[in-house]
Structures are given as structure tokens and as C-alpha cells.
């Protein structure tokens, strides 16, 4: 065991010992054990993130009707734009799924291409969001204008920041994939980002339902 670890290149994280649970369990079982630690930990991080979004949703639900004689959702939101950015995020979800499927087949180039497509969709979403925020700002609909706009920018902006960090992570992951190929650690990273990316799409469902559609309807 020490001979195999000595031959591996220097890595800047704690490597997981693939044979840690080998002694008392079967080989198949051990295979499960060393993977689950990171994935479950990342899942619990996502759940805590979900609580942050839950609190922001609660804030918006409470304050979203206080316009302070300022603009209301129906004056501000352009649903055509929101429909386009929603489909951008939805397309990026399915293309990420394709990337994971290519990874399962051991196809590095296929994984890279689908991840790049995912990143492009993510960047389009971010571009549309920046355009929307900039547009609102020029109309005078700033976070300072009313409680509705404060909670709106806080909720949608936090989601946008998450998408921006996800896109940054995607770029770093692409570099890692090109440098080291489909190693065990890289596969795990792809699966973690997969959870993160699909989770952000899930949060966006709540955003467009509560903020945009309900806002324009009422």
C-alpha cells in the first residue's frame, strides 16, 4: 500500500485510501465506503445552502408586497427575458447530465465538450441576469427603493452569485480534467459539481414561481 502511494504525484488534498475498509468487508462494499464520505458531506452542505435560500424566500414572501409607493413587479419584470434565462438553466442541467453519462463511459473528450456547453449556458444565464439588474437599476428600481426590491435583489442576487461560483468551479474543473484526465478524484469532483448545478436549477424553480410569475400575476 505504501509502495502505491509513494509513486503517485504530489497532490494538494488528503487522498482517500481506496482500501481503507478492505479488511473486514468485501471488495464491493469497500468501493462504496470511500466514495460516500465526500458525496454525503457535499449533500449536507447543499442542504445548509437550501436553508439559506429558504430564509431568503421567507423574507421575500413577507416583504415582497411592500412597494413603498415605488414600482411593483408587474411594472418591472419582463417575463420573456425570464423565460429565456429559465430555459438556459434547464438546458444546462440536461447538458451536465450528458457530461456525467459520457464520464461513466470513460470518454474524456465527450465529458469536456458537454461541460463546456453547460458552462456556456450558465454564462448566458448570468449575462441575462446582469442585463436585467442593470436595466432595473437604470429605472431607479434599486435595492434602496423599497422592501420589495431589497428582498428581491438579495434573493435573486444570492442565486446569481451561486451560479457565478458554479461557473468558476466548472472552469477550474475543466482545467483539472485536461491536466489529469478522468482520475478517481476528478470523477468525484464532477459528481459534486453535478449535485451543485442541479440544486441551483431547483432553487431557480422556486425563484421564477414565487418572484416572477406570482409577482406579475398579482
Amino acid at each position, binding site marked *: 500500500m505504501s509502495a502505491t502511494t509513494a509513486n503517485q504525484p504530489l497532490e494538494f488534498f488528503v487522498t482517500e485510501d481506496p482500501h481503507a475498509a478492505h479488511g473486514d468487508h468485501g471488495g464491493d462494499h469497500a468501493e462504496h465506503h470511500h466514495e*460516500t464520505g465526500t458525496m*454525503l458531506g457535499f449533500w449536507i452542505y447543499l442542504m445548509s445552502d437550501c436553508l439559506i435560500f429558504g430564509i431568503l424566500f*421567507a423574507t421575500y414572501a413577507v416583504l415582497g408586497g411592500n412597494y413603498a409607493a415605488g414600482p411593483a413587479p408587474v411594472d418591472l419584470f419582463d417575463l420573456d427575458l425570464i423565460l429565456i434565462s429559465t430555459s438556459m438553466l*434547464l438546458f444546462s442541467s440536461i447538458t451536465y*447530465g450528458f457530461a456525467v453519462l459520457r464520464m461513466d463511459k470513460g470518454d474524456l473528450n465527450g465529458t469536456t465538450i458537454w461541460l463546456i456547453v453547460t458552462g456556456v449556458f450558465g454564462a448566458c444565464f448570468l449575462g441575462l441576469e446582469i442585463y436585467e439588474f442593470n436595466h432595473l437599476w437604470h429605472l431607479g428600481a434599486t435595492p434602496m427603493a423599497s422592501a420589495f426590491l431589497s428582498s428581491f435583489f438579495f434573493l435573486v442576487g444570492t442565486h446569481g452569485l451561486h451560479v457565478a461560483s458554479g461557473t468558476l468551479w466548472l472552469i477550474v474543473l475543466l482545467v483539472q480534467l485536461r491536466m489529469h484526465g478522468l482520475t478517481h478524484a476528478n470523477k468525484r469532483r464532477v459528481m459534486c459539481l453535478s449535485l451543485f448545478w442541479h440544486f441551483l436549477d*431547483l432553487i431557480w424553480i422556486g425563484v421564477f414561481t*414565487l418572484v416572477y410569475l406570482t409577482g406579475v*400575476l398579482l
Partner: protein
Amino acid sequence: MSADTHEGGHGSLKSYLIGFVLSVVLTAVPFWIVMGDVMDNKTLAVVLIFVLGGMQMLVHIHYFLHVTIKAEAGWQVMSMGLTILLLVIVLSGSIWVMFNLEENMMPAHEQIERVRNLP
């Protein structure tokens, strides 16, 4: 390879496509309801788009996030259950309390009249 397929559940092409088609439908319908202005009853329309949004969330959890009862020896679904419980308490609690507060802090016209007519 066989260990990979049921480990954490990476899904198959078929399951991703089913999830995608369902998501497209569940996105298109609420946007159509609001943008097409198809319903006269606003309350019913809001309830409908929330139900459709909730359904789309379930579709994402099942087809994209691959949450199953067996994954991670049940801890994945357990932590999600706790999160949902906390979310329900935070969301319903905040909305309920703040709605009550608003009702009582901002007296409507008839409430002012009632106070005025007190003996």
C-alpha cells in the same frame, strides 16, 4: 462498472431525457398561464403555478439529483427530510406571524370606525 451505476445513482440517458421533457412541460405551462393571461381566477392561477413548481422540484430531485431512499444508507433522504421540515417551519411560521402583525399594525377603515364608536 456495475458498482458505479448504483453508487450515488448517475442515472441513464433515458432517465435524464424523461426528467428534461417533464421539466420543459412543467416550466412551459405556468409561464403560459401567466403570460397568456388564461385564467380569470387569480387565486386559482397562483395555486396552480405553485403546484406545478412543486411538481417540477420533485422531478428534479428524482431525475437530476437522483435522491433515493437507499443512497448513502438512507442519510441523504434523512438530511433532506430534516431540511424540508425546517423550511416548512421557517416559511409557514414567518408568513403566518408577519401576516398577523401586518393585519394588526395597519388598521383597515372599518377597524378605525369600530374603535371610534366604542362607548
